[in-house]
């Protein structure tokens, strides 16, 4: 490979991976062949290596032993805070549950009371509904006059006589006096 040969994007990526020891055997051999035949590639690798080595100058920060103590103290503070917050939540939950039960019981009592009142205290409307079948035929009952008169009609099989209304001359027992 001549000096002017340009590396592909993949070859350039492989150059870095080669430096990092991340290539498999075949890829490593391929890169080494490329490097052997390309002074430009060798120069690239050298510059990449030098730039990487310069990162050794980056600061390493030692926060000191105090950092461990501060971290543990902060951790304890957070845990205590969490425990307190959890305890507060539990108290709040207990109170809410108690209030909910109390309200539920109260509501049940109110509903039960209303229900009992509706079904035990007589009401004019409910009586009218109950008596409606009688009220509906009140005129007929009034015309009949009395239960004894109706029983007399039945004894004479007059309810079975379909021509009753068409033959008014049929002799009927004497009705009750009004």
């Amino acid at each position, binding site marked *: 490979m001549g000096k002017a040969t340009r590396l592909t994007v993949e070859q*350039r*990526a492989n*150059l*870095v*991976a080669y430096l*990092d020891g*991340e290539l498999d055997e075949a890829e490593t051999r391929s890169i080494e062949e490329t490097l052997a035949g390309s002074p430009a590639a060798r*120069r690239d690798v*050298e*510059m*990449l290596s*030098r*730039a*990487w080595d*310069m*990162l050794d*100058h*980056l*600061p*390493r*920060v*030692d*926060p000191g*032993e105090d*950092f*461990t103590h*501060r*971290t*543990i103290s*902060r*951790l304890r503070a*957070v845990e205590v805070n969490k425990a307190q917050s959890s305890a507060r939540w539990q108290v709040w939950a207990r109170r809410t549950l108690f209030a909910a039960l109390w309200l539920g019981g109260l509501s049940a009592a109110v509903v039960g009371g209303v229900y009992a009142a509706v079904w035990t205290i007589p009401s004019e409307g409910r009586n009218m509904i109950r008596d409606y079948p009688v009220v509906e035929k009140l005129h007929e009952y009034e015309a009949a006059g009395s239960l004894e008169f109706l029983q007399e009609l039945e004894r004479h099989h007059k309810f079975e006589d379909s021509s009753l209304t068409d033959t008014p001359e049929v002799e009927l027992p004497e009705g009750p006096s009004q």
Partner: protein
Amino acid sequence: MLRVKEGDEDAFSELVANYQSRLVSIFYNMLGNRETAEDLAQECFLRIYQARNGYEPTAKFATWLYRIANNLASNTRRSFGRRKEVSLNARDSGMMESTPREQTVPDKSALMPTRLADSRETCDVVRDALTTLSERQRMAVLLHKFEEMSYADIGEAMDLSPAAVKSLLSRARDNLRESLVAYVRPTG
């Protein structure tokens, strides 16, 4: 972590002590502010403690830790972006003593590696180069450089496939090389 899961607070202290420097360093180089970095590291440890009961040793602990760290850093950067109060450049935030940017970004035609004898200046130059990377590139670079994590582990921590990490790191290292070209150009 399994001891922490069983409620061993001493084990948690050990865990914090073991990872605090690494975690604060990652956050510091991500966000450029030491106070914020320490706050986030603490927050990260708190989340780990609170999630201890759900921990299953199916993945490496470090991968789990940096997954949480990555989410925290992303949220914080978004928050910074909304408030526009904190510069991502550490020196702009006033937390690092340093020379102004125009003095640290090299004139590519003039600066030579020998000029970088002062380690603080070198540090500033590298930090400037790091700020040219996207958030994800920066996190991937830091996890790879500081934690020596594999592409697969970085992918797990950042919710990316190993192929995506490979591409991300390739672009990141190309960007770094371009930013640092004056210092990495072969002398021969």
